[in-house]
């Protein structure tokens, strides 16, 4: 069989743990990392007779997120029970939202700062609230195969965000998760810690193969628990190949097989078929009679919309427009969080040059933060202090290499730019001294002079290093200018 082109079709389901103090339906703490089963009560352990009561803060965080995702917010929403048996689900059902979710039909714009794909809107089918299950810890020590259950996580508020199958490459999938994560962080609704499970991703994938008989869709596969960007990209890439190969071998299309659930084994670099949860085919959803519907008046939606913080996409747009930074730099700045954006803006305004300020912040400031593993709040230079240095550079009074020395000194000693320059012995060399240095260097290099005269102006460049040896403060631009002037005038 010959090779055909195919489109990779990806939709993502993202489970986001909301930053509430207490769980979705009881007062237990949601703090991560406590000793097993210490953050539980009759409600979240499903004790007979206990009843859930909705956490209003969780609903508010969900609402905020849904609005930021451009979703429609129906006035009426309700809670449903999703029935299935599993030891980490103590009630035998999960409280979720089925046919009338709290939000639907939104979108999230994704882009690639390197321009590898055109910016596009990924549709959001729905975002709904539900409670998390507990954790099953399989303890196989001492030849036993006991499973231990930790119910600390049981009942934690989750927002499930379901995208349309609008992504066409692993890059787009990555960009979607990146942008979604950033949005959630800016909204302050989740810590998005993927290692701790605050952001969990399931991917629905299949291929549309351009076969001679027309487009053929392969069976849809849901890959569960892709809890890092690396897993996501590798699993999607693998799955695309696997599905193509499977189609070539069996010819099975979407019509021949139901949706299959697979897991990702990162060590083997393969997806694998998962045993279906018992009765997963029928969750027997029905409205939870223990909870009342939630009514969200239009006015409340508009109020929340009005109070939304400036969102990442809007900030990027504004930085590019107001400060003239590149798409790449705005992406780096916004990607680091609101704190760095604010820092940058202060530097840019004080220095009067947005582009240069962006270079310094995205390169030097971030380098120091990374090297020292410190948060921005611990960065030793106030924006105004850094701006002074940028100003000197913008004024052409300091070349970049030397400016970086000054910057490092400022970071190390917390001195101002002028004090650092002074202590490093950096001072402006006056014109007559520079002329003397240039004259000396030119006399020592007649070949360069000849080359320049022969039309190779760039030959002067080789003299800059020599001039700097004579005086490290010699400004390369000035050296170049003066040398050319001297050659022009005639050296004698």
């Amino acid at each position, binding site marked *: 069989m010959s090779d055909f082109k195919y489109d990779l079709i990806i939709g993502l389901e993202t489970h986001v743990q909301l930053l509430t103090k207490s769980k979705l339906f009881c007062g237990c703490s949601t703090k991560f990392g406590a000793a097993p089963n210490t953050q539980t009560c009759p409600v979240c352990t499903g004790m*007979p*007779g206990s*009843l859930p009561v909705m956490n209003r803060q969780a609903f508010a965080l969900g609402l905020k997120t849904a609005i930021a995702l451009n979703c429609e917010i129906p006035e009426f929403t309700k809670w449903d029970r999703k029935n299935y048996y599993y030891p980490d689900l103590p009630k035998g059902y999960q409280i979720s939202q089925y046919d009338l979710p709290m939000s639907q039909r939104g979108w999230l714009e994704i882009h690639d700062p390197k321009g590898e794909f055109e910016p596009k809107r990924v549709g959001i089918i729905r975002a709904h609230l539900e409670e998390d299950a507990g954790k099953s810890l399989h303890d196989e020590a001492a030849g036993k195969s006991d499973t231990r259950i930790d119910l600390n996580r049981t009942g934690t508020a989750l927002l499930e965000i379901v995208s349309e199958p609008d992504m066409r490459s692993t890059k787009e999938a990555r960009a979607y998760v990146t942008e979604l994560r950033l949005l959630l962080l800016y909204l302050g609704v989740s810590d998005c810690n993927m290692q701790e499970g605050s952001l969990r991703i399931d991917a629905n994938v299949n291929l549309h193969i351009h076969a001679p008989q027309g487009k053929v869709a392969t069976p849809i596969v849901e890959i569960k628990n892709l809890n890092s960007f690396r897993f996501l990209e590798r699993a999607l890439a693998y799955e695309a190949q696997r599905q193509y190969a499977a189609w070539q071998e069996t010819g099975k299309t979407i019509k021949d097989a139901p949706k299959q659930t697979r897991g990702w084994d990162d060590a083997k670099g393969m997806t694998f078929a998962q045993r279906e949860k018992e009765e997963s*085919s029928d969750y*027997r*959803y*029905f409205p939870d*009679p223990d909870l009342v519907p939630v009514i969200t008046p239009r006015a409340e939606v508009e109020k929340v919309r009005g109070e939304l913080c400036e969102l990442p996409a809007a900030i990027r747009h504004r930085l590019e427009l107001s400060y003239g930074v590149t798409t790449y730099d705005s992406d780096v700045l916004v990607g680091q969080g609101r704190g760095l954006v604010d820092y940058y803006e202060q530097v840019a305004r004080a220095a009067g040059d947005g582009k240069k300020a962006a270079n310094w912040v995205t390169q030097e400031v971030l380098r120091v933060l990374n090297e020292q593993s410190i948060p921005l709040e611990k960065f030793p230079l106030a924006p105004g202090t850094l701006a002074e240095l940028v100003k000197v550079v913008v004024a052409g009074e300091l070349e970049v290499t030397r400016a970086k020395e000054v910057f490092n000194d400022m970071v190390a000693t917390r001195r101002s730019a002028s004090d650092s320059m002074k202590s490093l012995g950096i001072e402006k060399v006056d014109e007559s001294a520079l002329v003397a240095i240039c004259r000396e260097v030119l006399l020592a290099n007649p070949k360069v002079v000849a080359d320049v005269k022969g039309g190779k102006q760039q030959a002067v460049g080789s003299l800059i290093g020599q001039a700097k040896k004579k005086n490290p403060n010699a400004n390369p631009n000035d050296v170049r200018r003066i040398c050319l002037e001297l050659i022009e005038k005639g050296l004698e």
Partner: protein
Amino acid sequence: MSLIQTSTTELLRDLSARKISSVELTRAYLDQIAARDGQIKAFLHVDPDRALAQAKAIDERRGRGEAVGKLGGLPVAIKDVICTKGQRTTCGSKMLENFVPPYDATVVEKLKAADAVLIGKTNMDEFAMGGSTENSAYFKTRNPWDTERVPGGSSGGAAACVAASMAPLSIGTDTGGSIRQPAAFCGVTGLKPTYGRVSRYGLVAFASSLDQIGPLGATAEDCALVLEVLAGHDSRDSTSADVPVPSYSATVNQPLKGLKLGIVKEFFVSGLDGEIEAAVREAVKVYEKLGATVHELSMPHSKYGIAVYYIIAPSEASSNLARYDGAHYGYRCDEKQMLADLAAEEQRLQAAGNKKKLADLDTPLIRMYRQTRAEGFGPEVKRRIMLGTYTLSAGYYDAYYLKALKVRRLIRGDYDAAFGQVDFIIGPTTPSPAFKIGEKTDDPLSMYLEDLYTVTTNLAGIGGISIPCGMTQSGLPIGLQLQCRPFDEERLLQAAAMFQRQTDWHTRRPALS
């Protein structure tokens, strides 16, 4: 007159006047339990020491002149479906044989705060599913009027203990008639409040949208006193209503004027016992003499009540009872034996080369679930779990559950229309008096039909009360049911008390052996 034959109003008066002590009174009821309950079997657990200690503490507080709650040291029995902290709560099921709740139900907190003495936990149909208390996993409760007969159910123990003077007051639950029907069978007064009037927090759920806790006692006055303690909004129950609680006990004896009573013509049809019909018609006349006018009504959707109820209640139950899976608490099958059986089964299948059955063989977890539930639940509970699982299944949901919800709204519509014309609906509580133990065990459908007059109250979410209104020739009590608008319990109790001032059916007690 002995203490246990004295009305609660007098007992309260004597308690507060310190003519009697709560310890004396509690002891009198404990003695009666010791004397009678071997035969009646109304109680699942009685803890005399705990009850007496509670009574003593109340007496001491009263002795020091401290304030004492509204129930002032009166014993109250609690149906064993309501959680009591540190005291077993079995729901009449083997599944929860050793379950000790780590918390008190809201109503239990309220009763304790009102200084009720919790005298014991009463027997019931397993998980409140049944109308005869024959479905208890432990034993059958007998009707004090005729010990060959059932006391009704599911709050059979709750009604029988009041009828046999083993407790002056008791707390039951009513999902489809489970307070009113046993009250009728045992000749006591039982109130099912409006849905949301009393918090369900700590009531082990059978059908969450129908369950409601309510009082049983000798009189409407007793029920008024207890409802006043139980009622009110609870932040732990989202379905509890934030509606002010009137002082029911202060107003219960004020007569109502110009009462309009509705008789539903669909309730007086074949199947209704002749003696019951006669007693009910007689009761209507009593009201007429008190100035009430009677209006015949039609409730066209009431005939679907049983069908709708037996879809909605089992559907909710199938989900509510999923938590009893042996994983976290309650009964778990013998694991060692289970694993050995499973291994043997696997070997047999392997030897026989039966690949298909091998592939279908349970995992140990699934087998644990199956066996635990097979052994822990009784047949009626299993029947309803199966019914409910079926009616919620994909492909059946719309035809059964969703349709039932729609008809439920129509039934509520019938009531709304009726209450546009009348204050209360009056009729029989049950189609027949208490039946013989074992009579309907093999015929679940005829057992379900017992709920004919009571289920629509729960489906509509309104209030209802059953009061004694006569006796059959063979000496069995007959219950009169009054149903009221949502949250109209104050007037419902007044109407019931009016009747009880004119009649003495509620004062009759079975012969004490």
